[in-house]
């Protein structure tokens, strides 16, 4: 394929520049995880790795989180975060695929009204409705449960909108063809629509997994039991709240460790990002 033609290097130059600007803070985190805490806190941190890498990660992995976040070992924090993120992402994608499918491929009374009902949930952040939402979860007896933690976060306006946008681009011919074949709507959904949506599902999976992974406020309020504590709460607990010293070195090391599962998800989802999926010959 002839790329941009005139200049093969231009895309690489722009991408590398982009990576430098956008990944700089991540680089700093990595570098920070190899220095000692005072060096970081004073702002004296050089841009090159320091000598404390093994020590910091050892602390973070073995004694670190286990000790610091008393009684909540790092493995448990990571497991809780992983379960929460997976439940949220899978739930979101499933119910959004179904609702977008209904909105785009059917005609029924109240169609747009119901779509808007889902859509406006974007416009009232959880902080604003925290107290009433907590009351609902409490009335349902779901405080301190996994269901209470995840289900309220599963409704997704963004995912529904994204799939709607994508489904609208699916050529009518495909629908016609499947109707001529006598396939029902669900058959069409499974065998035509889902495979076509792969790149979008992959992108959404990555984004929503990270969304779930980074949830802080809701898990904090709705689960007070240490058994359900997540890695992000573990991190926040280590940041000094104004009056105490922060173990920046360890914090950075744990931030890097907390970054690994999302990165793993990105790498796993890579194979769905294959160009030309719509092409039959590919």
């Amino acid at each position, binding site marked *: 394929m002839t790329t941009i033609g005139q200049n093969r290097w231009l895309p690489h130059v722009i991408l590398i520049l982009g*990576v430098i600007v956008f990944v700089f803070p991540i680089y700093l985190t990595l570098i920070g995880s190899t220095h000692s805490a005072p060096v970081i806190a004073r702002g004296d941190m050089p841009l090159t790795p320091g000598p404390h890498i093994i020590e910091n990660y050892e602390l973070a992995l073995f004694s670190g989180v286990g000790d610091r976040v008393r009684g909540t070992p790092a493995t448990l924090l990571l497991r809780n975060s992983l379960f929460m993120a997976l439940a949220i992402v899978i739930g979101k994608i499933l119910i959004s695929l179904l609702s977008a499918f209904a909105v785009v491929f059917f005609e029924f009374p109240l169609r747009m009204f119901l779509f808007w009902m889902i859509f406006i949930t974007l416009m009232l952040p959880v902080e604003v409705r925290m107290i009433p939402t907590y*009351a609902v979860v409490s009335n349902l007896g779901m405080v301190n449960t996994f269901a209470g933690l995840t289900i309220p976060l599963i409704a997704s306006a963004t995912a529904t909108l994204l799939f709607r946008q994508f489904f609208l681009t699916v050529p009518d011919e495909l629908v016609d063809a499947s109707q001529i074949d006598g396939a029902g709507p669900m058959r069409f959904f499974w065998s035509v629509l889902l495979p076509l949506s792969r790149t979008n599902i*992959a992108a959404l999976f990555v984004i929503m997994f990270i969304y779930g992974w980074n949830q802080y406020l809701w898990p904090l309020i709705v689960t007070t039991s240490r058994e359900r504590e997540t890695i992000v709460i573990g991190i926040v607990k280590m940041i000094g709240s104004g009056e105490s010293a922060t173990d920046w070195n360890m914090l950075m090391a744990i931030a890097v460790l907390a970054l690994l599962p999302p990165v793993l998800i990105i790498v796993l989802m890579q194979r769905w990002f294959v160009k030309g999926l719509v092409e039959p010959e590919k």
Partner: protein
Amino acid sequence: MRRRTIFRGKLLPYLLLAPQLAITVVFFFYPAGQAVWQSLLIEDPFGLYSEFVWFENYQIVLSNPLYLEAARVTLIFSVAVTLFAMAPALLLALMADQVIRGSSGYRTLLVWPYAIAPAVAAVLWLFIFHPSIGQVGQGLRALGVPWDYRLDGGQALGLVIFVSAWKQVSYNFLFFLAGLQSIPKTIVEAATVDGATPTRRFVQVIFPLLSPTTFFLLVVNIIYSFFDTFGVIHAITQGGPGRATTTLMYRLYRDGWINLDLGGSSAQSVLLMSAVILLTVIQFRFIERRVHY
């Protein structure tokens, strides 16, 4: 937007929508309804005393000149964040779509910023831009720029715009890339064979095909800039210096979360929500007409 071909089914679409709607009604509409009800009350935080006051909370909010000042800041802030979050992301996605070697590497690297825990990201930006201890802050001062966002309102606004946009670039990049990669290759190749220059190819072929994604991102980014950025503002400037970075949502967050003024903050959320819904309806009615499906 309507499709030409649809499926028949009376019950099925409702069944498909049911799970999403059930969760939305129970965990969103019911609590949101309570918030609307609260906006008509003056109440103590613990809910032991309350007085029905009709629209007094709204009147208090709207008659405050500082609220209008915050609206002006919000306008500048939101336009800038949306622009700076989307334009670089589109450029990077176009580039990543073109390279053959190393594209998965770039993709992974460019999504990382989104994955870092927000609490850590805010601290990092302070480390980077702090006038005396930050790498970039010190650099700017060494270059003779009087960099001090703690007392320079313009710089403070610029900084929170930059950080808020930065957080969202990964998100936009990934969806632009997904959009680009689902464009059938044959179409782009046909345009190339016709001898279209890269710029023409982008303007006439790729961008129109990408417009559903762009529209999706436009809506999502505007909403993001309104509702999801108060964390950044709280961490970096706390609305200051003066009121230079106090957006409507930050005001709301502070009134509701720190000052525990439930009635006033609920009134503000109802106002803000109505404004954004209106804005979104306008986008769907007028901008979506230009979207090419």
